[in-house]
Structures are given as structure tokens and as C-alpha cells.
């Protein structure tokens, strides 16, 4: 096949969704954020809701998410995305609102906003990317850092006695009556990425029901912060993160 033949529309096997901009992503090669972005953007495209979707970006690695989603976006203060999302959704109840946060943003500094937004049952989609570390600031300990895991602020490994326990915030959210759909997914294999897309699709579709919050955790890697090559990082994720943060639906009341 010549190049000209390959690029004919009928021969295309993959096309970037138009809901992602053409901006070059700043994420490290091998990081899960890019995949999660693509899945969300594809869901928005497939549901044909680009003009009615408003995204809220966090502070953390995904702080520039607004440069990649071709939807109207708001950059929230650290941890406050669920409060910002609440303000938007209450005033545009027929729009689709999603928040996008990492573990430090959602499960440390923003714990109160996370719990209370879900407890009120705010009718929005909360995306939570958990890689057990503060990526953007250079690999410090996060609320979800595993026992014994080495980070720049737990250089001898997380000591549960002095540093506290890794927080299973998704399990907490699942206890709340306001939460309609709570699930934990991953994207480090094609099969898991496809499953994750189904979950994110449901989390967006749920907004049509107006019955509560949809919360999707994605257990992801941080090969830079974990100081591992990308493939090794995914293996480490399988061996260490998933036993503590098991995949699957925690609650599906739809």
C-alpha cells in the first residue's frame, strides 16, 4: 500500500476524536492520563454532547487538561473541583459536568469537597485518577501511597505508624446515599481500557437520570514518580496497586 492509499478515509482504522484538541500533551510517555483523556473525549463525541459539556480541571498533573479537551473548561483551585462542579451543575442542570482529579487533589486537600459533593448526590461525573503519588510536584507521598512505598517524602517507605494509612476514598464514597455509581477501573491494558470506557460512558449517561453522583476511579501508573520504565511500572501496578485497590463496580444503583 502506498501512503496515499493508507490515508484514504475508507482505509483508516483509527482517528483521533475531535473532542481532543491537537495540542501536544505534556504527560510523561507511558502515563495513563493521556488514555483517560482520550476515553472521556470519545465518550463525549459518541454521546454528541460536546456543546453541552463543561469540564473542571484540578491542580496536579492534569492541571492543563483544559488545553486538551475541546469543551468549555474551568481550572479549579487545588482540591475544589467538586465544589466548582457543583456551582456549574446547579446553574446548568441540563449540561453534562465532569470533574477530573488526581489523588492528592481529590483525596487529601479536597476530601471535604469530594465527600460532600457525592453525599449531596450532585448529578455530575467525577473522574479520579489514582497513581499513589504526587506527580507534578516531583513524586511526594500521596494519601493513596501504599504501605512501604518509597516517595521523595517517604524515602524509607511509607511507615503506617507515623505517616498514616493509604486512603480508600472510593470505598468511602460508595457508602454515601448520594452516590449512584461508584467504580474502580484501569487503563494499562487494551482490555481494561475498553472496560473503563464502558464505565465512563455509564457515568456520563447517568447524568440524564438525575439520580446522584457517578464516580470513576482509575488506578493508573506514574512511571516517572515510581522511577520505573513504563512497562515495569504497569507490572508494578498489577502486583502492588491492584491487590490493595481491586478493580470493579463498588456500587451501581442505576
Amino acid at each position, binding site marked *: 500500500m502506498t501512503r496515499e492509499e493508507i490515508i484514504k478515509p475508507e482505509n483508516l482504522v483509527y482517528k483521533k476524536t475531535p473532542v481532543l484538541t491537537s495540542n501536544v500533551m505534556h504527560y510523561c510517555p507511558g502515563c495513563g492520563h493521556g488514555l483517560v483523556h482520550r476515553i472521556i473525549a470519545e465518550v463525549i463525541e459518541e454521546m454528541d454532547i460536546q456543546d453541552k459539556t463543561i469540564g473542571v480541571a484540578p491542580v496536579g498533573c492534569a*492541571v492543563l487538561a483544559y488545553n486538551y479537551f475541546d469543551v468549555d473548561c474551568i481550572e479549579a483551585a487545588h482540591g475544589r473541583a467538586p465544589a466548582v462542579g457543583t*456551582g456549574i451543575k*446547579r446553574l446548568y442542570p441540563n449540561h453534562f459536568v465532569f470533574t477530573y482529579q488526581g489523588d492528592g487533589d481529590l483525596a487529601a486537600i479536597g476530601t471535604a469537597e469530594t465527600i460532600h459533593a457525592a453525599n449531596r448526590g450532585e448529578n455530575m461525573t467525577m473522574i479520579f485518577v489514582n497513581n499513589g503519588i504526587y506527580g507534578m510536584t516531583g513524586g511526594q507521598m500521596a494519601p493513596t501511597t501504599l504501605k512501604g512505598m518509597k516517595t521523595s517524602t517517604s524515602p524509607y517507605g511509607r511507615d503506617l505508624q507515623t505517616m498514616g494509612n493509604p486512603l480508600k476514598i472510593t470505598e468511602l464514597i460508595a457508602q454515601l446515599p448520594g452516590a449512584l455509581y461508584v467504580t474502580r477501573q484501569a487503563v494499562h491494558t487494551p482490555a481494561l481500557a475498553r472496560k473503563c470506557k464502558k464505565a465512563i460512558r455509564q457515568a456520563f449517561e447517568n447524568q440524564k437520570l438525575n439520580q446522584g453522583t457517578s464516580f470513576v476511579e482509575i488506578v493508573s501508573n506514574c512511571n516517572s514518580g515510581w522511577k520505573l520504565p513504563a512497562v515495569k511500572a504497569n507490572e508494578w501496578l498489577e502486583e502492588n496497586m491492584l491487590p490493595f485497590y481491586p478493580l470493579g463496580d463498588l456500587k451501581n444503583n442505576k
Partner: protein
Amino acid sequence: MKELKLMKGNEAIAEGAIRCGCDGYFGYPITPQSEILEHLMLENPYEKTGMVVLQAESEVASINMVYGGASVGKKVMTTSSSPGVSLMQEGLSYIAGAELPALCVNVVRGGPGLGTIQPSQADYFQSVKGGGHGDYRLITLAPASVQEMYDFVELGFDLAFKYRNPVMILSDGIIGQVMEKVEVGEHKPRWTDEYIAKTYPWAATGKPKTRGHNIITSLNLQSAEQEKLNIRLQAKYKECEVTEQRYETFQCEDAEYILIAYGSSARICQKVLELARAEGIKLGLIRPITLWPFPSKIIHEIGLKTKGILSVEMNAGQMVEDVKLAVECKVPVKHFGRFGGVIHTPGEILEALKNF
């Protein structure tokens, strides 16, 4: 026909919000301003105008709900009192940085710390000089009556949208709690979503095919870009300083001495004027209505013709610094104030004036 109501200052804020077409209120209870949220809940405006009223989990959440609502072009507000407003400073800085219109009310109580629940004016610096991080300004309105509590909600929204900047109504526990007669206006309709999308093209209302995506952010990774934003903000503040200085003067025509006071202090000072004039002291009063932009022009103009200026504040001396700057220290300027929640009496103020 005029519609008159007897109400508390705090209730007037709530009523002003409902009647001016406010879209959303997000707040958290704190004395001495809880009647605002209570009155809104009681009136249930969602049923009448569609105005959203939500009790948030904290002041931090409240101001960020306001940030969200302002990002999508809606008329949104929050209210609190001193310790709660301290918690909102991060959010106010973001709102200023992202150039969003929003309204905040501070019914000030004595500080620092948990302080007291009695009235105070000790949050002048916080509101007028910054409070949060970065080079930004809050347009600050100081009501001196329940009527102004009502009127300044609509005025506050007008200024917020005109300048795309947060506006603070800096009230205090007296004005919040006192009951007075208020002339209320007609119910104005809330803006439609179509009107907002057309009139405020920056708002993140959902991206139609006809425009690029709108981004609301206060982040610039390049310092040169962040400097450009700051230059734009400063130009806006300059314009505001030229066009928005508001004040009221009392018996300044022949005044040899001037009192400068805002809010409930200005009400007390009106009594001082009566007492002083009865004793033959030629005393005038300037009441700043905007604390930022500070009415420096009129204070300079009148102040320079006097023998001295007494800045009367329920704090340890905050506005007095701006008065000195306004008259370029060419006239003696002194401060008198009680603080920590104590309200000064007209007699005390007159005494301070006599000892000037």
C-alpha cells in the same frame, strides 16, 4: 408605587439578591450573618425565580461554588463574616485572577482569630489591600444603612460584570442586625442562558460549533504571559479608580475639621456632627461608600481646606493610612477607634476631636 418593608440588614441582602435576578447563592452559617441564608431558604426563590440557594459544607466550598457559577456567566454570590471570609481568600484571588464577576458580603465581626460576634471594621485591610495572594483588588462597597444593604447587591453585580472582577460588600454586625425601613424594587427577571452566551462570550456555557472552547483559568506557566495578565488587571483597576469613587459628604462647606468614617461608624459620626455644631465646632463628615477605589479625590479636595482630619473606625487604625495618602500628609490626620467588637460612642469621638 413604592413598596416599603421593615427588615434586618441581613434580610435586605437576601431580598436584594432575589429581586435583582441573582442566579445562585452559596453560603455557610456564621454569626452575625446567618439570617441571609435563613431568609433565602425561607423565601425559597427556586420556586419563584429559579434562583439556586445551597448551604455548602464550608466557606471554602461556598466560594468555589461561586467560582464555578461565575465561570458560566451567572450572577452568583456568597456571604459570611470575618473568620469565614478569611477562608474565602484563596477563592477570591482565583476569581480575580480568572477575571470573573462575583459578589461576596462580609458582615464583619471582631477579630483576630475566632474573635467576637460583635460588630467591627477590622477587615478593612483584608478587603481593600488584598487578603488573598497576588496583585489584585476587590471593589469594596460599604453600606451604612439597611437600604444600602439592599441596594448594593444589585450595584455590586453591576460593577462585578462591568469590570469582570469580584465585588465585596463590607458591612458589619450593626448594619447586618439592625432593622430599618427599606424601599424594595420590582422583581427583575434572571438572565436567560441565551442572553448570557450572547452578552458574555467569555463564559464557559458549553462550546457551540461556532466558537473555540472557552477556558477559565488563572494559570500561566510563562511568567511573561502572567505579567501581561497583571498589566491588564492594573489597567482595569486604574479605570476603576478614575470612574468609581463613591462617597457622601455632610456639612463640609465651612468645616474646619473633618471626620472620615464608613458604615456604622459614619452613622455614629452624624450624631457627633450634631453635638459638635451645637458647641460651635465647625465639623464636617466624609463617608466613603467605595472603600476601594478609595474616594481620595474628594478627601484631598476638602481635606486640604481643613485644620485636621479624624479617621473614625471600629478598628485599631486601618483606613487612616489611605486618608493620609489622600491628603499627602499635608494636613494632620489622626485615628480614633474602639476595637475588638466595641462600638464607640458619639461622646468619645467628640472628646477625641477636642484633643486633636
